[in-house]
């Protein structure tokens, strides 16, 4: 049995359509006889059989489009032996006359192969997809509110608004990007000079090598007498690689002294002020707090750290963060955004971490998916975020998508902290210092390590009842650290 397959009829052909069968099952065919007419993207072509025998079955019908290589018909080989048309014998052709097709344009070079079908994505109209692309919204992350889960234009607009708002969060609001030559950046690294504090004199106010060396020099000669800004203000968001512009820089940037570190701190302060004021203005906060017994957590931690290398050891904060995140998964009302007069719960818990920068300033980058991370992973993410926050190498995405935030001022020695919520979030957890406290246990006085956890919550999104349930959930989780 031989197969008659869809032939490759040109360098750029992937599939073909059967226009016409010139044979029917049972017909006898010879090698070279035209038995079908195939329509390619460009023209209708006669397709010949490469073997001699009888048509067994027509597998693919007229009008069907199939890829090259698909079996179109089956042929039982070896009909009455008749060698190929012997040379010298008159040529025999029994193909009926076929009406000529309209002349198809034929370029000498084959066009590029058409792109294959894209992967299945949530149903979204082309116009909305284009709108999403314009607004920089990744449709894959959206849950469509339209019929059958389709993503509507409103979904896209809301997501974009959300992204813009998140980007406007105080901590996330970076100062202006600093322009640094690659050479200067390398020398700064070698001399470990914080670029944010260097005054640039290069083209367009950019920082050059000599600027860096001058800054390093002044640092070594002891504390500067003059009012140079406190060093170490983290360069906001990742300093973009120097942009090469041919034109003269616009006047605003060209003023003689580049913005010094002091100016950058002032602008960050203003941004935080604006956001906090708006939060207090718009969000009806309610507050609840609880004291959590940390005995089992700390004992478990001490045992675990005993065998571990320094780099793998956990700090108590890791346990507290994990409990806050896991509890937030169980009490969704505290984890999400308040927008357009309604609360939309977030799909995952991106735990914002309030990180104070040395010398003033505050950033709240988010640990992505904190609710599902293992303790060790959460610990390393936390360390990484803190280091990068303080060296100005955070990604803008990390600064903009926290769904709930925690502020831990234990290290600063305060017992409890009642924070201000970061809009559009609806909750903020405050963690105080772990201290030894006399506690009544079974009627007897005992001394136990405890910590005060507080919750500031948006009364539009949840009530005290929910807030209280959330805190007790955190406390219960911390009594079984091994499960965290």
């Amino acid at each position: 049995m031989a197969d008659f397959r869809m032939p490759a009829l040109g360098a750029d052909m992937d599939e073909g359509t059967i226009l016409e069968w010139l044979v029917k099952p049972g017909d006898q065919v010879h090698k070279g006889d035209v038995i079908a007419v195939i329509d390619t993207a460009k023209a209708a072509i006669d397709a010949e059989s490469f073997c001699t025998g009888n048509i067994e079955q027509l597998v693919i019908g007229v009008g069907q489009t199939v890829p090259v290589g698909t079996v179109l018909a089956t042929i039982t080989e070896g009909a009455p032996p008749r060698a190929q048309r012997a040379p010298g014998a008159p040529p025999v052709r029994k193909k009926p006359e076929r009406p000529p097709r309209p002349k198809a344009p034929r370029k000498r070079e084959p066009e590029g192969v058409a792109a294959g079908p894209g992967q299945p994505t949530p149903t979204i109209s082309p116009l909305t997809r284009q709108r999403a692309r314009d607004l920089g919204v990744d449709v894959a992350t959206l849950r469509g509110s339209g019929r059958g889960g389709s993503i509507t234009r409103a979904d896209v607009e809301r997501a974009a608004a959300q992204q813009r708002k998140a980007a406007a969060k105080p901590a996330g609001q970076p100062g202006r990007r600093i322009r640094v030559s690659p050479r200067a950046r390398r020398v700064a690294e070698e001399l470990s000079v914080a670029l944010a504090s260097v005054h640039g004199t290069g083209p367009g106010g950019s920082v050059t090598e000599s600027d860096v060396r001058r800054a390093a020099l002044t640092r070594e000669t002891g504390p500067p007498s003059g009012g140079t800004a406190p060093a170490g203000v983290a360069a906001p968001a990742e300093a973009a690689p120097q942009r090469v512009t041919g034109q003269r820089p616009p006047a605003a940037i060209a003023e003689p002294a580049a913005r010094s570190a002091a100016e950058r701190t002032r602008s960050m302060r203003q941004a935080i002020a604006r956001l906090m004021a708006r939060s207090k203005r718009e969000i009806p906060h309610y507050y609840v707090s609880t004291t959590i017994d940390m005995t089992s957590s700390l004992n478990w931690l001490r045992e675990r750290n005993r065998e571990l290398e320094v780099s793998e050891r956990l700090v108590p904060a890791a346990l507290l963060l994990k409990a806050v995140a896991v509890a937030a998964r169980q009490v969704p009302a505290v984890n999400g955004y308040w927008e357009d007069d309604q609360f939309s719960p977030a799909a995952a818990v991106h735990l914002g971490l309030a990180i104070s920068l040395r010398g003033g300033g505050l950033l709240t980058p988010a640990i992505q998916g904190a609710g599902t991370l293992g303790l060790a992973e959460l610990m390393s993410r936390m360390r990484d975020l803190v280091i990068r926050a303080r060296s100005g190498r955070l990604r803008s995405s990390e600064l903009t998508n926290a769904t709930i935030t925690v502020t831990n001022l234990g290290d600063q020695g305060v017992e409890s902290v009642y924070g201000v919520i970061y809009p559009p979030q609806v909750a903020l957890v405050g963690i105080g210092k772990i201290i030894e406290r006399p506690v009544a246990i079974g009627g007897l006085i005992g001394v136990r390590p405890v910590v005060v956890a507080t919750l500031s919550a948006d009364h539009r999104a949840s009530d005290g009842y929910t807030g209280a349930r959330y805190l007790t959930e955190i406390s219960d989780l911390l009594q079984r650290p091994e499960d965290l």
Partner: protein
Amino acid sequence: MTPDQARHTIEEAVTQIAPDADLYHLAPESDLRDGLELDSLDFLRLVEILSERTGRRIDEDDYPHLATLNSAVKFLAAR
């Protein structure tokens, strides 16, 4: 390890964590963590660097020895 070597190691470790820390004005008896505004993560990193540089294991129980600059120097020089 001599006390001077220990002091140099500690100073170097601290500048790595807080490049702009003002060691010049740090009273050797004052609390290291408060003076240099080191939070728990910074302190853990300090311990990590010190154990790397000295090649010796520092357990949680040893942490109190690292409270001040002088106590830390004594602790590292003794081993």
